[in-house]
């Protein structure tokens, strides 16, 4: 199994991780080795097997539709890297030109 440089850059983009160029070669090698190992799963025939997403969750509990346990806005914003106008401040993401 080989993982190309572009494969790594593609999934890094999907994962929103801006890799430095020197990080890429090791990741190509390591991801290829791990994915190749995972091919072991293809030894088993699973066509008629149901997937398991969760164990032991038999019922999904419901709760009253009531507001509870809200956090103090100032306390939360205190921990933000940047805050302003009573909210989290982020770089521009809408091009208004």
């Amino acid at each position, binding site marked *: 199994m080989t993982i190309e440089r572009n494969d790594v850059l593609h999934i890094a983009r999907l994962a929103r991780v801006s890799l430095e160029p020197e990080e890429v070669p090791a990741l190509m090698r390591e991801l290829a080795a791990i994915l190749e190992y995972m091919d072991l*799963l293809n030894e088993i025939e699973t066509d008629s097997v149901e997937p398991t997403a969760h164990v032991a969750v038999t019922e999904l509990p419901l709760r009253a539709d009531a507001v509870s346990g809200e956090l103090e806005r100032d306390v939360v914003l205190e*921990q933000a*890297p940047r805050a302003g106008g009573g909210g989290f401040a982020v770089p521009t993401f809408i091009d208004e030109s």
Partner: protein
Amino acid sequence: MSETLRFSAEEIADGVRSGRLSAEKVTRASLRAIESTRSLNAFLHVSSRTALESARELDARRARGEALGLLAGVPVAVKDALCTSDAPTTCGSKILVRAQNGQGWLSPYDASVVQKLRRADAVIIGKTNMDEFAMGSSNENSAFGPARNPWDASRVPGGSSGGSAVAVAAGLAPLAIGSDTGGSIRQPAAFTGIVGVKPSYGRVSRYGLVAFASSLDQLGPMARDVRGAALLLAAIAGFDPRDSTSAKRHVADYRAACDRDPGGMRIGVPDEYFGEGLDPDIAAGVRRAIARLETQGCSVRPVSLPHTRYGVATYYVLATAEASSNLARFDGVRFGLRVEPPSADLSRMYGSTRDAGFGAEVKRRILLGTYVLSAGYYDAYYLKAQKVRTLIVRDFAAAFADVDVIATPTSPTPAFKLGEHVEDPLSLYLADAYTLPASLAGIAAISVPCGTTPGKGDRPELPIGLQLLAPAFEEARIFTLAAALEAEYPPRAPDAHRIVA
């Protein structure tokens, strides 16, 4: 180890409740022990001030004649993956450290388990070191340097709950909280010669635990003795409306289970856990321990768990997929680090923050998880692994039709050297082979000490862990057997000269 800290958790709680021991004195002894073992790097934050405050308050309440809780005055170390409102939470990662002041993120609320500890009158002594976001089996993935094994400081304590294991093994606190997604409580417990319980999925609320892989994560007790683990689980188990995966099931009396006669219990031993890669000294130690349980009246028979060899691949597909989704929340907006290159847009800020803030293993797993979920690969990896997970669940169900408990080694090797697996991440994944299947099946598990390997060459005597598995919500069974085994192998601390070396 100080005289005070030689007491078990149960003895401390009894002593503080009855007034024979002062909570403040116990807390001071714990803080002194932590201070004198800084080189072990067990703690990322020591809560000296708040711990002493709560200890003094406990002594005052006791003096006023108030009844104190289950964990009265017991110092408890908490893995840094749990949110605490009075101490920073970093999850072993730089991404939760603020660039402005170098301080870890301060949670606006307490995790449910932390609340329960406070209500039981425990003294939270500090936050323990861990592999970043609980990803690792050696503690070497901590952004703050690895914790070290008190049995041999050139060796790892295991992971990811390595700091919690070290805190208990080195006698800094009698109890600690760990989290276990694929073995992160059991393997470090085995490596440091202590007791570690991974309760059934849903047994303990995860509200306020930084999420890694939500279909697998579980919180549990780490302790010097089995009764200490039972006491701590009693304090933290139970339904929590704030965690919709926590189970509305009766919590058994785990301490009473420790006193039960193990006679008549049926123990299954799976061949699949004694194959290639198992250290011969571990194999011998574990077989000896099982034989001792047999002399106590248990019956031992072989069982088969045929899909064991697929556990590692299944786990690393599912856990990384879930992690890639859970860790999307670390984006430089709401907490911790933000890296914002000049004139960066939002997307560029996300990417730069995540590249700078996450360590190599976390990035590796996020990318792997993103890959197995991406268009064209979802069926081949993620769906396939979910189906194999079903087969692993069925293996255990079939085995438990014939036996009450399954006994295996916790880890194929004793504690290895720092740096031994750093160059080859896959080799470290393979070392989790014995703990992953129980996580995938959501069943109850414990690692309990069963002696040490013989010292030879540059490998000193090192602890061996026996893993006991029981069906979901049957924790009482493993406590009965673990307590019976403990009578054969009394808790043993590493030599003091190794701890300070």
